[in-house]
């Protein structure tokens, strides 16, 4: 996997590790951005990992763009040798699939959708070959997901399904983006899930909603006191389907500021995962569900 290096004007270098998404590309991008951070290069001001690429912002008054480009190319050799092992955390995110709020919103934007006569999740289930929405929800929620990028707006996570490619869900984005999406909508576009951290425009299909805040500019939510954004690249997520009753219960806990997400520390090895995907996922879920 040889990366493509290109300038984004005189203040950014953009590195495409791979044109297509894969966990290998994500890990390499993450390991290169870690190497850049560790190298503490003068003039580097922002390090932004993405799904299968990354971007460095720099001050060309401090380091010449060509010099930084050469430094980054050297980092690629380090990254290629790095072991793809990540000390990270697995988090359970409750999802109320087919909730009334995303339903109300998707009904307002049917004319922008590929299939105006179906809901987003009915459409996604059908084109991915599932007989029912329930089967589709099981497919979406049974295996864990990698947070492969945080961005677009305010702490929004992109998540990549940890299954082999044959089993990966793929759904096109809306034909034309909506002007509205409820806050905390669980969405889907291409091969990525996402959680809309704030209300706003969006083009991803809407499957459900989580009661769990993931962005708090006021930093009042108990688990967002230290930092206003919950997710970081490399986090592992397990969706937990919940009912309306459970949603309401979670929401009242959020309002009382007593809601505590289930989070466990895990070590993830890409080689181990590639050798035995289902076995590795089972072990991750065992750690999540222990005690």
């Amino acid at each position, binding site marked *: 996997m040889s990366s493509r290096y290109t300038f984004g004007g005189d*203040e950014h270098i953009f590195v495409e590790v791979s044109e297509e998404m894969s966990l290998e590309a994500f890990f390499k991008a993450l390991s290169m951005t870690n190497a850049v951070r560790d190298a503490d290069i003068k003039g580097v001001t922002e390090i932004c990992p993405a799904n299968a690429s990354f971007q460095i912002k720099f001050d060309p008054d401090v380091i010449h763009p060509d010099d930084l480009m050469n430094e980054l190319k050297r980092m690629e050799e380090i990254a290629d040798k790095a072991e793809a092992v990540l000390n990270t955390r697995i988090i359970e995110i409750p999802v109320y699939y087919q909730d009334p709020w995303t339903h109300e919103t998707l009904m307002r934007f049917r004319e922008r959708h590929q299939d105006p006569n179906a809901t987003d999740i009915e459409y996604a289930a059908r084109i991915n070959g599932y007989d029912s929405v329930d089967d589709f929800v099981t497919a979406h929620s049974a295996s864990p997901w990698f947070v492969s990028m945080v961005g677009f707006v305010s702490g929004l996570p992109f998540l990549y399904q940890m299954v082999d490619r044959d089993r990966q869900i793929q759904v096109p984005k809306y034909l034309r983006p909506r002007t509205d999406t409820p806050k905390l909508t669980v969405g889907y576009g291409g091969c990525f899930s996402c959680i809309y951290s704030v209300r706003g425009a969006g083009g991803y299909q809407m499957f459900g909603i989580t009661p769990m805040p993931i962005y708090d500019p006021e930093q009042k939510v108990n688990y967002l006191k230290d930092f206003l954004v919950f997710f970081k690249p490399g986090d592992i997520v397990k969706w937990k389907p919940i009912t309306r009753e459970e949603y309401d219960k979670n929401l009242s806990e959020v309002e009382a500021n007593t809601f505590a997400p289930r989070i466990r520390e895990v070590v993830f090895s890409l080689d181990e995962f590639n050798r035995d995907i289902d076995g590795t996922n089972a072990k991750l879920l065992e750690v999540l569900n222990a005690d």
Partner: protein
Amino acid sequence: MPINVKSAGLATTIQDLGRPGYYHLGIPVGGAMDRLALRAANMLVGNDEGAACLEAVFMGPELEFTEDTQIAVTGAELPPKIDGEARETWTTLSVRKGQVLSFDYLRAGARAYIAVAGGIDTAANLGSRSTYAIGALGGIDGRAIQPGDAIPVGRDFRNVAEGTSVPRNLRRMPGNPAELRVLPGLYVHRVTEESLDRFFSDSWKVASEADRMGYRFQGGSPIEFVDREPPFGAGSDPSNITDACYPYGSIQIPSGTEPIILHRDAVSGGGYFMVGTVISADMDLIGQLQPHTETRFVRVNMHTALSARRVRAATLDSIRQTFA
């Protein structure tokens, strides 16, 4: 000393030089779209160059002062009036307690910067007072100013003589047609050579969707893409890529029709290819473009981009010399 907001203008926000360091989490740098104008406004009232000002777009607010102070209006040609009396832009103006600052209609440019001696002193989020409405950060409760707001002002400033002004040749504004210099790159290989030539030779117009997040352009030829097999994760449209970071100033062309230049409140990433990036020296100019302004994209190389950056820095230094 608070400033009382009597009317708010169109979308008047508190801005400084922004909050770098959080783009990897989808929180953009934000801050003044025309940074040179913000710095000049602050110099005119004896503030640190990065103090928070009001950024008014197309239309000015009405502000009542509760103490004697000094103010300056830079950027767009949005003529200020004090108690109804016309005053100069880019000039140190004195206002007395109880006087009201209002504005005549916009003559040129798009964004005016209103500086007050002492600087706006609202609470900072992540090191900046800049308003980022999508993320509810900065400003007053993370939003544009509203009638009834009392904007707090700091007390720390140097004295500048009333009537001091920035020489006209140092007030940088886009020409007509506006020219934005672009370094091709990023996903430019997705576009055929002929199509790229047309992108640079066509005349474009600023669309009505033009705000702090980005500026959309219309009127040029649709992009012709190089054929490909869609990569896994990218999406089926030829303009799709596997969701990636977007540089500030990058030009994406969703479905190959209308280019969008991302600005200070950029979305940090997404799934559209980018043809290149507006050079850092010309980012200020975009903030001064009105809808329908005729615009040309001018192809440059890195050498020219860096020279232009030095010229802009020299202009800033010359403005500083005015106050030395």
